[in-house]
């Protein structure tokens, strides 16, 4: 019941967020340009009008009602097709990244935990610390330049780093997106495993002759999972935010790239022209992003209900 209520809450938040974004996107873009003698740009002022704002939003909804395909982007291709196409490409990056981040992150965390008292500790905690402390931007740029350099010297095979057509660009994109989440989760896993150390249930399991690995994976890890899953929202937000960076760096034609194109009227304008967002596409991509967050929150909720013992349900909301 608790979980059902939570699911409803997430859904309401999703609706509120989408409407909030639509409100921002359809801010009236009526701008008064002030020009000099030769018609050159001097300054621009902006006055907000509530009526136009409401008109914009209602206009958008009636437009959607009349055009199920959201109108034509180019002859033969509707906006809806284009948005779906770009979103699908991004989905192929985001979903494997999120799944792999948890698998690899938890494994790295266990590795760090086991290396703790050994000489080679720098391989465990050292690497995790380094990758959390340095921005992943640094590693991505170094990797791109490095791969190119190695290929030039003939030391490495050719990897396509640009575009979104080939399979290998997806692999590279996923790897870039994975860098930070994996090490972030490794750190969380390691800390929560350490907290469990010395608990009575571990000693009980040991006294019954259960093997060390079995205790670690089945007994301790299950108790650590609620702590790890508490960070799921941070991870999802980080991956989606980083998607903008990775798509830009790789020239990947996905949803982040589409949203950026649709919204960022801020990079250039012409006098006399009403700068306006490509509202239709922007709303499409916004719904896509918000839905990913919604689905990931719901999935986490399901996992939480599976791993949280009934006695702790109240503590790990």
């Amino acid at each position, binding site marked *: 019941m608790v979980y059902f209520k939570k699911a409803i809450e997430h859904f309401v*938040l999703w609706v509120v967020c989408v409407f909030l*974004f639509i409100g921002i996107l359809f*801010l009236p873009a009526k701008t008064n340009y002030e020009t000099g003698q030769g018609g050159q740009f001097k300054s621009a002022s902006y006055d907000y009008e509530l009526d136009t704002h409401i008109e914009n939003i209602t206009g958008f909804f009636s437009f959607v009602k009349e055009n199920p395909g959201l109108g034509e982007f180019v002859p033969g291709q509707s906006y809806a097709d284009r948005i779906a196409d770009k979103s699908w490409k991004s989905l192929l990056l985001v979903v494997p990244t999120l799944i792999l981040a948890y698998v690899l992150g938890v494994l790295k965390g266990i590795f760090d935990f086991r290396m703790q008292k050994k000489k080679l500790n720098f391989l465990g905690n050292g690497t995790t610390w380094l990758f959390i402390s340095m921005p992943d*931007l640094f590693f991505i740029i*170094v990797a791109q330049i490095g791969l190119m350099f190695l290929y030039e010297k003939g030391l490495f095979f050719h990897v396509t780093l640009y575009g979104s057509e080939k399979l290998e660009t997806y692999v590279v994109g996923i790897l870039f997106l994975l860098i930070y989440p994996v090490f972030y989760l490794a750190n969380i896993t390691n800390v929560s495993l350490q907290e469990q150390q010395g608990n009575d249930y571990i000693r009980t399991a040991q006294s019954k002759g259960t093997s060390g690995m079995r205790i670690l994976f089945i007994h301790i890890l299950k108790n650590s999972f609620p702590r790890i899953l508490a960070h799921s929202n941070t991870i999802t937000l980080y991956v*989606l935010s980083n998607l903008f960076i990775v798509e*830009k760096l790789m020239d990947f034609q996905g949803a982040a790239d589409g949203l950026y194109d649709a919204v960022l009227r801020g990079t250039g304008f012409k006098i006399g022209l009403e700068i306006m967002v490509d509202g239709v596409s922007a709303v499409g991509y916004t719904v896509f*992003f918000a839905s990913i967050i919604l689905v990931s929150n719901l999935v986490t909720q399901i996992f939480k209900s599976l791993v949280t013992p009934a006695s702790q349900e109240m503590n790990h909301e």
Partner: protein
Amino acid sequence: MNKSLIFGLIILSFLVIITFIAPYLPFVDTSLKDTVMRQKEDGGFELPPFAPSADFPIGSDHNGVDLLSRLLLGTKETLLTILAIVLIRYIVAIPLAMASFYSRFFHRILIVWNRLFSFIPPIFFVILIIGTPFILFSDNRYLWILIVLAMIEVGRVADIFYQGMVDISKRPYVEAGIVSGSSPLTMLKNYYWPPLRPSFIVQFFSDLGRTLFLIGQLGIIEIFLSVEFVSQLSGGYKTLNTSNVWPTYFVDITHHIWSHPWLPITGTIAIGITILAFSMTSSGLQQYFDKKYKRA
């Protein structure tokens, strides 16, 4: 021996020293003059960006400005920018945390704020807000962007301090303070603030690092803090960045990364090392306080 604190502070003090002495260094060209074209040794001309050479130790930017001078002079601007963002964030977040501790109404606001932002990826939000004409053409655009960047994480910071205060309120010594008749202000000053101070300092440094990372990311997608509108051949106007802040070295990165790699490399190394210094200082301070208050 607290290695990370020492290393972190050494790098940070080095950066602070640079901000003060950079204009007086002999190899720094404070005028940042453009070199539009230059003659090659074997005859012929070349256009900027110039590769690293004797004139330009780490190369030049696309206007032919010496990159090393820009880098060193930009240190001050970069550090001041992130400091301003984090200060604005804390000026809003700390009172919000305290208010939500004392009043249910403000606590509601904090919860709603946090829930809402848990549905908004930060970069997504920045793109959306900065694109609005209200901010784009504002005379105080720079200030507005600072405020937007500060607001993004107000909820997170406020929540950390709110939780901290709730934890403290459960300790016995707080009851003793209430029983002895301390006023709410004395309670705040003498009972709540001292145990919160260490986490405040640790959090502050880690936030500085996070903020630098965020403006670095924004640099990649070409959102800059201060811009000027520049006339284009097509009759349109394009925003052009006009500062020396490090993230601006990422401009046109997909184009420069192969042909003129020294531009993005310089930017990413400067940002990377500074963020490393902030996180080292932050985790070093954490260790220091843990040891001091015997919490380790």
